[in-house]
């Protein structure tokens, strides 16, 4: 179907800018997108009868990566090399 109605994972790489152009990039649109993404993740991995560690472990791993990215500048500066 047309590019505008597909979800992000169904969009090909070449069509990405076109797809981005059709999305509402206002605060409301972004917020709506975030809410939809969270609710689909929640319904798939957390809101089940017999879940496992996977639901929150993926969230924690994502948080670890994000925090490492934020503090990369500081971490790369500290030097553990012995002064030659």
């Amino acid at each position, binding site marked *: 179907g047309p590019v505008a109605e597909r979800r992000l994972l169904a969009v090909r790489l070449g069509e990405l800018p076109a797809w981005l152009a059709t999305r509402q990039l206002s605060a409301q649109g972004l917020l*709506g997108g975030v809410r939809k993404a969270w609710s689909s993740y929640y319904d798939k991995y957390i*809101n*089940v*009868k017999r879940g496992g560690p996977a639901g929150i472990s993926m969230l924690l*791993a994502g948080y670890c990566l994000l925090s*490492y990215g934020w503090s*990369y500048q500081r*971490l*790369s500066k500290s030097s553990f090399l012995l002064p030659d």
Partner: protein
Amino acid sequence: VISSVLHVTRPLHTTQQRSAPLPPLPEKGGEVRHGLIPEEFFQFLYPKTGVTGPYMLGTGLVLYLLSKEIYVINHETVAAACILSVIIYGVKKYGADVAAFADKLNEEKMAKALDVKNEAIKGLETAIEEEKKEQWRVEGRKYLFDAKRNNIAMLLETNYRERLLTVYSEVKKRLDYQVAMQNLKRQKEQDHMIQWVEKNVVQSITPQQQKESIAKCILDLKALSKSAQAAV
């Protein structure tokens, strides 16, 4: 402010209205390998690279990050390794027990809700039975009213007969009175007449006749005494 914004922008009634019952929760979550990477990623790479593709990609990525010092090994690495090993050991050892405990809690909740529902259903069914019985009882109205009608008819009959008797006795009393009056009158007339006749007769007996009758009586007595003496 944020809550008010969320409240306004929330899309309401956009999907098809689904009537009860709600679809049940899925049994298990999406498949995740090693607790971190969803199965879809492996399926996505399978056609091009086979089974080992994602693992090679992971290894290559890790070596690249380490060699280019994009991931710096410092004291935090050691801490992370220790923490992760402890967490993984704990999950592997006690995961099943915790899952069983949580399942038991869920079961109890469900059982309680089902109990409430069953109790409500039973209560309503008994109410239905009682109601049917009351409706059956209402049909007995006919007999009740028949009995009442019989009672009233009997009362009316009794009253009527009592009054009939009263009428009869009253009439009889009046008639008896009339009869007694007539009898009394006749008797009084008779007595009066007898007295009058006697009085007149006595008056009519003149002294002359009295003397004659007395002399006759004496003669008769003498004659009788003579005959009596003769008989003795």
